[in-house]
């Protein structure tokens, strides 16, 4: 019957109940949207990073990741490529010869990473081919180069112009090669576009005096979650002279950001919770003060303080439950809708590109995000009701009955 009284009390002042419910619903929806958008953005940054060039797994000669010099090439190219070719779960792979060097034009020069690739296999591993905004992607073995549009701007070159690539050879001399710009790409990362250039594998090998050797094999998996398992299998097959790293080790900052995300979320939830709690206290207090005489009568006829306390808390619980359920449904629906259409933040595209995120953010609905909202909001509502409920128990029946 206490449940019934609490329920009917909510319906008694429907305007106030609706105001509290709306604030709870807005709180839940805000939390879900914040979670899905910011998690989606970090996820997108990681995916962009992996998709642009890193891949899910990379194979190098031992020690390359700590000291990226071309002297540390893959000990046995054929063996490594055969191991990858026969590995379960591998969707695509590409051999590469990356080196740090200088690209110069008549108007300027810029340092960066010159990546020698096999045009065909690379297009299945990285997204560069699909981000060409002018000209075309690499086609064959000629002396051609695709560069970022930002880099082209810096060098004052365009499609068809010539540039000179220079890098230290394996023997320690300076190797150089003349390339013709055949295409400009624009990824979601401004930094990547300013520092990367792609040339045919044979040209890079020749410029660096590498012979037929390669430095890196980038692998894309059917399922990214399999990265640890595939890497372990490759390590077992290739032995200690090879370095097999997953994307978790290759972009540790982004992965750490993703892993720390739940902890960062707690801070946001505490802030939103605090903002909500004062509204709840205020409304529940008003509700108690409006019923002082009624509480007085209930206490006079023998209702114990614990029951009076429970009655106010049950009212808060009802509000929390209804608000959370409606809020989660609305939040999930809104997130799914935004996921479908994407959130176009092209006005901030420059800033977002600096972080490696695209101009269109795709929110990502997470079970953890929903769970956190389902726990935080009712808890906040109940915490907010504690003081009003305690206040109700402090009433003296003899004075409360006469309260007007």
């Amino acid at each position, binding site marked *: 019957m206490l449940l019934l*009284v609490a329920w*009917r009390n909510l319906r008694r002042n429907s305007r106030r109940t609706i105001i509290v419910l709306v604030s709870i619903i807005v709180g839940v929806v805000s939390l879900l949207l914040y979670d899905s958008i910011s998690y989606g953005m970090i996820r997108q940054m990681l995916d962009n990073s992996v998709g642009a060039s890193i891949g899910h797994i990379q194979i190098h000669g031992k020690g390359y990741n700590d000291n990226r010099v071309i002297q540390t090439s893959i000990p046995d190219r054929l063996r490594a490529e055969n191991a990858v070719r026969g590995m379960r779960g591998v969707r695509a792979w590409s051999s590469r010869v990356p080196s740090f060097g200088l690209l110069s034009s008549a108007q300027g020069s810029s340092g960066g990473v010159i990546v020698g690739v096999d045009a065909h296999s690379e297009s299945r591993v990285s997204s560069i081919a699909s981000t060409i905004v002018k000209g075309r992607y690499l086609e064959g073995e000629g002396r051609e180069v695709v560069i970022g549009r930002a880099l082209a701007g810096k060098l004052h070159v365009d499609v068809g112009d010539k540039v000179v690539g220079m890098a230290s050879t394996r023997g320690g001399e300076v190797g150089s090669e003349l390339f013709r710009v055949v295409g400009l790409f624009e990824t979601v990362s401004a930094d990547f576009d300013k520092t990367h250039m792609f040339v045919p594998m044979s040209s890079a090998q020749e410029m660096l005096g590498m012979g037929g050797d390669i430095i890196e094999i980038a692998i894309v998996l059917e399922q990214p979650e399999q990265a640890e398992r595939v890497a372990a299998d490759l390590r077992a097959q290739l032995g200690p002279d090879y370095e097999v790293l997953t994307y978790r080790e290759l972009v540790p900052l982004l992965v750490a950001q993703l892993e720390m995300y739940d902890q960062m979320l707690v801070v946001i939830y505490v802030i939103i919770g605090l903002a909500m709690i004062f509204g709840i206290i205020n409304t529940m207090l008003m509700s108690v003060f409006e019923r002082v005489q009624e509480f007085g009568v209930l206490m006079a006829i*023998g209702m114990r*303080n614990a029951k009076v306390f429970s009655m106010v808390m049950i009212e808060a619980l009802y509000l929390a439950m209804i608000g959370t359920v409606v809020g989660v449904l609305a939040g999930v629906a809104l997130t799914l809708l935004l996921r479908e259409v994407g959130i176009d933040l092209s006005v901030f595209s420059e800033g977002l590109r600096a972080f490696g995120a695209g101009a269109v953010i795709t929110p990502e609905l997470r079970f953890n995000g929903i769970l956190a909202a389902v726990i935080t909001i009712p808890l906040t509502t109940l915490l907010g009701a504690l003081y009003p409920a305690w206040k109700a128990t402090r009433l003296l*029946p003899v004075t409360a009955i006469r309260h007007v």
Partner: protein
Amino acid sequence: MEVIRLQHVEKIYADNGVPVTALRDVSLSIAQGEFVVIAGPSGSGKTTLLNIMGALDRPTSGQVLLEGEDVSTLTSAQVAAFRLEKLGFVFQAYNLIPVLTAMENVEFSMMLLGMDKAMRRARALEVMRELGIEELADKRPNEMSGGQQQRVAVARAIVNKPSIVLADEPTANLDTHTGAQLLDIMENMNRVHNLTFIFSSHDPQVIDRARRLILLRDGAVEKDVSGTS
């Protein structure tokens, strides 16, 4: 059997920091089945005395024994339990719970006792039938007249079979005819169930029905007359 004993009860309020004596050296005893009216002019201490007898208020000094139990020694939870089991209250403004129907209002104090739904429904119906208000069972307080609400309040007060019913100005908001009907009911309950009724009132028709009249003046008992009705 004695149900209430007050010994040298004094109650002093602080009114804006100024001490006001509401009751002075009140000693009296009320037995089971009495039909008592506490009368007196406004400010004489009628309601204060009723509140102390109903364990809603504590005296500044003196002793209050309800069914032999010294109320001052009980914790607030024990006092609440005592009120629930032994006392029934009827208020001037009826004070029914507005969100509950008449039946639910009557059931409420049985719910507080932990009685199961079927039992309390049967008991509530029995009492409402006795008071002639069973047809009001599904009505909310705002759908009832003052007299009907007060009868529901009486039903709520007696449903737990208390030994004492305390009624503070129960007819003050009712017209003479409805007030008389209500008093008929209470007299009948007193006669049939040997239920002790204690009224605080200055309504002549209540005073006329008193079988014991306690007259207060300036917080002290001026007269305590039995067999007045």
